[in-house]
């Protein structure tokens, strides 16, 4: 059965898995990625080790890219964006803008894998002085340092003696307008805390949290490991403000389980920033006329038993474009989306053949 190709938008974990899966089912795939390289956020944001198994991000993503690169069924278009779409599946005509100019292609189904973007801690409020203090960084900045091979205090270049993480920055916050949990930041913070204690055994590490959300196996793989083996200090209570004293930043907050005020200098403060809908996800929602759910991610219908179908037949979403997702979620959603897209196309072909 000859079909129009499945359009996969986005070359991150979900998009790569969707493309691989579709090709394995014998479906031609058009994989569009706006950046010049494949791999998505783990590569573009310089992640060092992936949560929770600590495998090197480059290695993992290269494996995913290699799985589709030589496949004749997968047509990879880097530096290309979808700028318009017309018609309904299985006959959607999309306009692609790429290095070689504009092109119109007819696709049978669409899987949107445009992911998330990291919350910008300086955007909404300046309560943590992210753009003011060199020693206030984000989980992503920390990843960049790990990838470069050394975790240092940015203002001095020296090894820090005391580091703290502040959880839920940009998540679970009505003031900011993001009333969701970003799911992965607790795990990533534990992972980074473990890495800091491994690299710098003399460095004390604190995690200030509201709830540690270590679902499933992350509980003992990350949280217990950080607390019991690596002696990371978990303190329930969110830092209220960060001020400067001399050349150090001082955090102020409450230890809520002890009912005591915390006020202590830190060499480095790591803000555990969450996920927001990416610009690409919002744009694709507009182009394909996909409604957004109340948190501004792409709406899926039929939850909880259907995590990938949108309001439009033949158009699916996988990964963090549909809401905060870890890698396991994203990969699983990609598989489910491919299964539904292939099923949809097969049914359409059978109907057409009478």
């Amino acid at each position, binding site marked *: 059965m000859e079909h129009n190709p499945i359009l996969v938008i986005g070359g991150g974990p979900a998009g790569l898995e969707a493309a691989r899966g579709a090709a394995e089912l014998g479906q031609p795939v058009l994989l569009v990625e706006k950046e010049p390289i494949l791999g998505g956020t783990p590569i573009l944001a310089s992640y060092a080790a992936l949560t929770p198994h600590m495998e090197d991000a480059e290695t993992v993503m290269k494996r995913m890219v290699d799985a589709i690169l030589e496949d004749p069924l997968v047509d990879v278009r880097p530096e290309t964006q979808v700028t318009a779409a017309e018609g309904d599946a299985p006959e959607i005509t999309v306009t692609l803008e790429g290095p070689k100019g504009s092109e119109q292609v007819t696709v049978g189904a669409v899987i949107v894998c445009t992911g998330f973007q990291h919350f910008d801690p300086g955007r909404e409020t300046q309560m943590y002085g992210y753009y003011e203090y060199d020693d206030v960084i984000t989980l992503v900045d920390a990843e960049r340092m790990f990838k470069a091979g050394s975790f240092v205090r940015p203002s001095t270049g020296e090894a820090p*003696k005391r580091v703290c993480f502040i959880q839920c920055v940009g998540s679970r916050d009505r003031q900011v307008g993001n009333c969701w949990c970003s799911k992965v930041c607790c795990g990533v913070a534990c992972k980074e805390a473990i890495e800091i204690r491994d690299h710098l055994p003399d460095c*004390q590490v604190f995690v200030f949290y509201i709830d540690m959300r270590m679902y499933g196996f992350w509980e003992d793989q990350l949280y*217990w490991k950080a*607390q*019991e083996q690596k*002696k990371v*200090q*978990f*303190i*329930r209570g969110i830092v209220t403000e960060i001020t400067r004293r*001399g050349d*150090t930043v001082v955090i102020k907050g409450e*230890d809520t*389980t*002890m009912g*005591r*005020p*915390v*006020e*202590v*200098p830190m060499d480095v403060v790591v803000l555990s920033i969450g996920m927001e809908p990416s610009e690409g996800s919002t744009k694709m929602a507009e182009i394909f006329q996909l409604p957004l759910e109340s948190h501004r991610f792409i709406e899926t219908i039929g939850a909880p038993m259907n995590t990938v179908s949108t309001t439009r037949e033949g158009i699916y979403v996988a990964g963090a474009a549909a809401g905060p997702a870890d890698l396991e979620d994203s990969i699983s959603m990609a598989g489910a989306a491919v299964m539904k897209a292939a099923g949809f196309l097969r049914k359409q072909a059978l109907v057409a053949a009478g």
Partner: protein
Amino acid sequence: MADPSPPLYADAKYREVPFEEKQRLFDEVTADMRWETSLYGCYECGICVAACPSARFYDFSPRVFAQVMAREDVHTFYELLNESVWDCSQCFSCTRCPRQNNPGGIITIMREVAVNHGLQSAKDALKAYSRIIYKIMSTGTQVAPDMLQPDFFPDWGPDVQQVSDHLDVWRRAIPPETLHTTELAWDVSEKTRMELYLIWKLTGNLEMIERIDEGIFMILEEVMEELLEEHGYDIDDIESVVD
């Protein structure tokens, strides 16, 4: 130079005590052979607090011990060591912990460290127990029948008066002869008392008592020296006594 390890809390006490001193005592606790199975990590969930009889009546929380020690918060550890470590009744109801912690066990070890270092908190806490310590260490019994006096137990009713007035008779009504005692819970032979004394001495318990209550220690030594001498032993030649 900035304090290398400042207290976490703005209201931290004992700021005048050097960090190294606190760390030394902390390390002594964690070096104890029981430590490894006393504490894993703390959720700060409070399951131990709701089970704790002391927490019901005092400003005391077994959770605080688990969480402070899990965090290795040396400053707050020192606060606990000098204060609420003595508010625990050592009933171990707190061991119903999902992480399998033993807050009461942490307290056991901390108390021993406090006593071994003769901390003022240990002296204060144990002052009221002098009589009990003396009785246990010299006889092996603690609660004596003659403690049952009507003035002390008005809520026990009129029977107390009756029993107290004729304690000797009541005690003799109990069949085993070893219970025909009024000043001790039961009759303790001199051999047993000497053996007990040697156990206290050889296990270092007497040294602990000396550090926190020299008066009681001296009385004990004197009484036991006399007893040993009566039986032809020399207290200063402990080796021969053990043989």
